[in-house]
């Protein structure tokens, strides 16, 4: 494995008596698809929120692209190239597909204290928006309000938004949640394509998807990393079997 793009060192986060992150550590190498799995309540989302900056850890450090980002605000991490997609699809429902993607593009094309010119007429933004729409296959939906898209299309658009700024790394929070079998197949195809271009941290519950996609897997139990390895290693690890996989793998 190459050098770490994202490096997480012993994060601790408590909510009252609950220890949501308990010395959580993680290394994501440049170019890999790393999956973070764990049973319900293992602290996956808490961990992710600390990586993207929505939560501040009580202790520990996070490094991204050679810089410490432990206390950096969300928007600056995003500007550094750490993009995120959400578990519950998070798009601008009242804006059109074009406007949604154009906002995502805007975030990475200089400041937006531009008060006069129409945003949609800006040639730089327009070109990038067309590219982003083509990448996720939503060209035909350009002028549709996001609220009217199907669940799968929203997911696609959200990924398009995360990619619009050409991030260095993509944090995906349970992209398979709430997806039908057809949508899941489409999504796997999309992620396989993304994998060739981006470093990805995939937080996921869906086992079959994780094992077929991931280069490496980290298992989180009670806020603590209990194992990291290739899918084969994880499958064979007795501790992991006991803590989490149980009958899902055996039976």
């Amino acid at each position, binding site marked *: 494995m190459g050098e770490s793009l994202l490096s997480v060192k012993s994060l601790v986060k408590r909510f009252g008596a609950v220890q949501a992150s308990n010395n959580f550590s993680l290394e994501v190498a440049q170019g890999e698809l790393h999956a973070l799995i764990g049973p319900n309540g293992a602290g996956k989302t808490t961990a992710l929120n600390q990586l993207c900056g929505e939560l501040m850890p009580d202790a520990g450090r996070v490094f991204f692209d050679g810089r410490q980002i432990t206390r950096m605000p*969300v928007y600056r991490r*995003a500007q550094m190239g750490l*993009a995120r997609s959400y578990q519950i699809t998070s798009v*601008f429902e009242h804006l059109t597909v074009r406007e949604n993607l154009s906002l995502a593009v805007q975030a990475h094309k200089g400041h937006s204290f531009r*008060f006069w010119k129409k945003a949609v007429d800006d040639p730089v933004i327009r070109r990038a928006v067309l590219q982003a729409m083509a990448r996720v296959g939503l060209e035909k939906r350009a002028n549709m309000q996001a609220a009217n898209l199907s669940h799968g299309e929203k997911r696609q658009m959200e990924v398009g938004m995360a990619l619009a700024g050409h991030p260095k790394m993509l944090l995906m929070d349970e992209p398979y949640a709430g997806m039908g079998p057809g949508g899941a197949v489409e999504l796997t195809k999309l992620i396989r394509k993304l994998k060739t271009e981006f470093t990805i941290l995939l937080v996921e519950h869906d086992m079959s998807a994780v094992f077929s996609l991931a280069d490496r897997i980290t298992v989180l139990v009670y806020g603590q990393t209990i194992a990291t390895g290739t899918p084969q290693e994880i499958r064979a690890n007795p501790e992991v079997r006991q803590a989490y996989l149980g009958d899902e793998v055996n039976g």
Partner: protein
Amino acid sequence: MDKSPVNRKILSIAIGSALLLALPVLAGIAGESYLVTLFSRILIYALAAVSLDLILGFGGMVSLGHAAFFGIGAYVVGILSFHGFEGTPIIAWPFALGGHQSGLVLWPAAVLLAGAAAAVIGALSLRTSGIHFIMITLAFSQMLYYFFVSLEAYGGDDGISLFSRNTFPGIDLGNDTQFYYLCLAALAAFLFLSYRLVHSRFGMVIRGCKENERRMKSLGFSTFRYRLVCFIIAAAGAGLAGALIANQTEYVSPGLMHWTRSGEILVMVLLGGMGTLFGPVLGAITLLLLEEFLSIYTEHWMVYLGPFLVLMVLFAKRGIYGLIAGGNNNHG
């Protein structure tokens, strides 16, 4: 796509503008010259309402303190022209600062000071959201209200009267018709500016923040800065309206910034249609005309206004503007 809502919108705006342009003539024909004065007041409140719509309808910031900036604009004109007339300095130390009579000096000063106050109030208030934001803006405006109530040098509770309207090159502000057209021009200019603003890159960011601020941050926007600048621009608009109302009534009092005044401006926006820019103009016209004519018959005109408001909010989500101009896009 069906083009008719767009045409209907343009047609409504054209008819509205034509009526407002012709109003002094129509009032002259009807022999009701007081209509010119009444409508000057309405246009000034419309300007304040449009400025509130920028933060409320587009930015999703429900401020109950917008009248504070309206009042600051008015007091800047009131205090400066008071000293300008008397020829006394406002402060003598550490540097002498005299008053003034010219609108060219006073109105930009009103705009700047309202904006500066908004920078401070906004920087503190915008760290909160939802009900907390409503309460903190309310608290700030009430603080300012009591500050001016206690300012004995400028009349305290009773306020101050202007000796005359300000001067303005080429225009006789004392002439009601000329003053009316000035108010109309100020409103039109602010509407045009706001229209450009909400469609610009900045406007897109503001609208994004209204809908999903968390997502905006994760896309890489420092949302606080954008919202603060929007808050300041809206306050500057209200400051200009305040400067105009001081001239219109030739009287300034703390009542201009009482929280009920903020409520009134808020009602204009809701009534006319939030996030439509032109709607708040209709809201101001409707509310102030109703107030004017219902109060002829009863002192308790609010009793009749209340149910009307409830019906509007329940059944016309985009307000009067939505009923007239149709369409459902949030593009102003």
